[in-house]
């Protein structure tokens, strides 16, 4: 019995995951994914006017348009001379599974898939890393501030982070760019890596990319750290007054154990859900930060797409963003259930 008990803490959550609960959750996300894809199909068709004709007009300005390319545009955006809606939908889905989103107009004649994947990793690495760093630092500092509310650290850190929180982040980006790149010239002003560095898995490229990432990453970390800090500070300050934390002290446990098993362990739960949401938002890019530093990520691409009325690129970006949000939320949901037993559904 005892041996069973010690072995079970691992298998319990797994058991909760397996079976119908997991299946239900997967089904939910599949439906949500289908809804996102379908909305992406419907939106250009609901737009006033005829986006397909507009796109084709632009394409003819940029170069000759073959009949196949014309067909792709009609498949993605409908248009006057395309077939019934249902047939359009079926061929749209078919094209989707082949990864065919047509040609970008802003980067004519590069396929949308290539354009999106060129920006994808820049954004994921930059914004993803910055989000993780700011979450970790903000949460740790918030826990320290909330552990002894009203003490010196709290009375400096909390008002300061509210101040930083209210500063627009593109303004911080401009200040950083002006001081560190323009005035002092310590770090590169713009771009993802040096122009004459060949992209690849080489030390030179990675070094250059890191150097270029410091300022945009610092912008994101500086401006988002305060949100995590305030959140964790308030949660910690209220959790340490809970009876179970008092009981943990009464049990004569070591401070480290009281923090890790009782106080911070409970206080961090809402931050974890917030973190899952922001990780999902990573692919959306940090639009203004990427613009200020001319960073070759998805945010810059989205900006280009909007400026050039590049509907195919917009459609591709929206689809990638919404599907990534869904995938990340699915993962976060599954992990959260392991962390908070109260959210486990009974199968």
């Amino acid at each position, binding site marked *: 019995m005892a041996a069973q008990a010690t072995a079970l803490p691992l298998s319990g959550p797994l058991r909760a995951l397996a079976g119908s609960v997991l299946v239900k959750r997967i089904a939910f996300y599949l439906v949500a994914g289908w809804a996102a894809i379908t909305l992406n199909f419907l939106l250009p068709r609901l737009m006033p006017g005829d986006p397909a004709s507009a796109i084709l007009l632009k394409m003819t300005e940029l170069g000759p348009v073959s009949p196949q390319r014309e067909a792709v545009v009609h498949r993605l955006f409908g248009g006057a001379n395309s077939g019934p809606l249902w047939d359009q939908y079926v061929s749209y889905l078919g094209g989707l599974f082949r990864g065919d989103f047509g040609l970008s107009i802003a980067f004519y004649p590069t396929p949308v898939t290539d354009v999106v994947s060129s920006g994808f990793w820049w954004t994921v690495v930059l914004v993803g890393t910055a989000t993780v760093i700011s979450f970790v630092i903000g949460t740790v500092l918030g826990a320290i501030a909330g552990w002894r509310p009203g003490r010196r650290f709290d009375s400096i850190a909390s008002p300061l982070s509210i101040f930083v929180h209210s500063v627009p982040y593109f303004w911080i980006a401009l200040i950083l760019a002006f001081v560190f790149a323009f005035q002092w010239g310590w770090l590169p002003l713009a771009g993802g890596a040096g122009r004459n560095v060949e992209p690849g898995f080489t030390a030179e490229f990675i070094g250059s990319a890191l150097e270029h990432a410091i300022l945009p990453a610092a912008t994101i970390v500086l401006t988002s750290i305060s949100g995590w800090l305030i959140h964790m500070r308030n949660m910690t300050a209220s959790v340490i007054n809970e009876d179970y934390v008092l009981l943990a002290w*009464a049990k004569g446990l070591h401070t480290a154990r009281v923090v890790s098993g009782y106080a911070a362990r409970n206080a961090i739960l809402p931050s974890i859900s917030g973190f899952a949401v922001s990780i999902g938002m990573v692919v959306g890019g940090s639009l203004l930060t990427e613009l200020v530093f001319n960073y070759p990520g998805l945010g810059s691409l989205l900006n280009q797409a909007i400026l050039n009325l590049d509907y195919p690129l917009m459609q591709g970006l929206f689809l990638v963003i919404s599907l990534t949000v869904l995938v990340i939320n699915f993962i976060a949901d599954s992990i959260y259930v392991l962390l*908070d037993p109260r959210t486990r559904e009974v199968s």
Partner: protein
Amino acid sequence: MKDSPVLLDVAGLTVEYGSGPGAVRAVDDVSFRLRRGEILGVAGESGSGKSTLMTALTRLQRPPARIAGGAVTYHPGSSDPGIDLLAASPARLRELRWDSLAVVFQSAMAALNPVMRLGAQFVDVIRAHRQVGRKEAWARAEELLELVGIPANRVRSYPHELSGGMRQRATIALALACEPEIIVMDEPTTAVDVVMQRQIVRRLMRLRQQFGFAIVFVTHDLSLLVELADRIMVMYAGRIVELGTAADLYHDPRHPYSQGLRDSFPPLHGPLRELRGIPGSPPDLRALPPGCAFQPRCPKRQPECTTTRPELPPAAEHGAACLLQQPADLPGSKAVR
């Protein structure tokens, strides 16, 4: 019980909220002795300082509460000089907690960690105080749960999966984990229904027989204490107003406040009495009335009650802090204002 050795000696314990001239004295110069294996009941209305007293005994008070004076001496062995809990180092205190002095809180839902399995909350405290393996500790947790009538397989449940009564019994089982000599209980039966309350009390009595721990039982329910406790201490406005055996308190309450408390509950056994409430409301601790704190509500108030603060007769078996209980010529000499 009267002759068993003193286990906990509380002398002049004073707890204040805040400091300086604005401080509120929630526990004022409280002294009592807890004997080995004894159940000492602490009764009083909300705001009487009974919960503050309980947290101060275990040094669990949280800011702005602070212990302003007094001593709490724990005597592990009869010949031992005793350990002052209020002066003990954090490390010493950590060793003593739960090992000698365990706590049961009022709200069992809030007292159990929602993200830990029930068993794990036993295991961490057992392993913090005893050199046992993980397996053994889990087995011990199962044993303890069965002791309070919870099936052993519930050891793997989370607190939210248990009923209210189960959770309350689980916190009592938890208190027994290291076989402490003293268990301080703060209204452990308030959150459960009357049937469960009886069950818990009966089980508590049986466990006390089995393990011989002493209990400080804090509640507003005097009739429950009359059944359960060996001695009862009645608190009002942070002070002890009466101390005596349960039978004394029930049959012969000497302080008008204790009389009021007794008469405001229906007796569990015996003929029905007319129920009476205590008029008025608990005093504002920031502005206590002059003289006896109870005098504005007291049906037997005398003129000198508003000028003289009555003291609890020291070392009496049954005594009340009331001028009516003291020789007529004494009060004048003790005027405080």
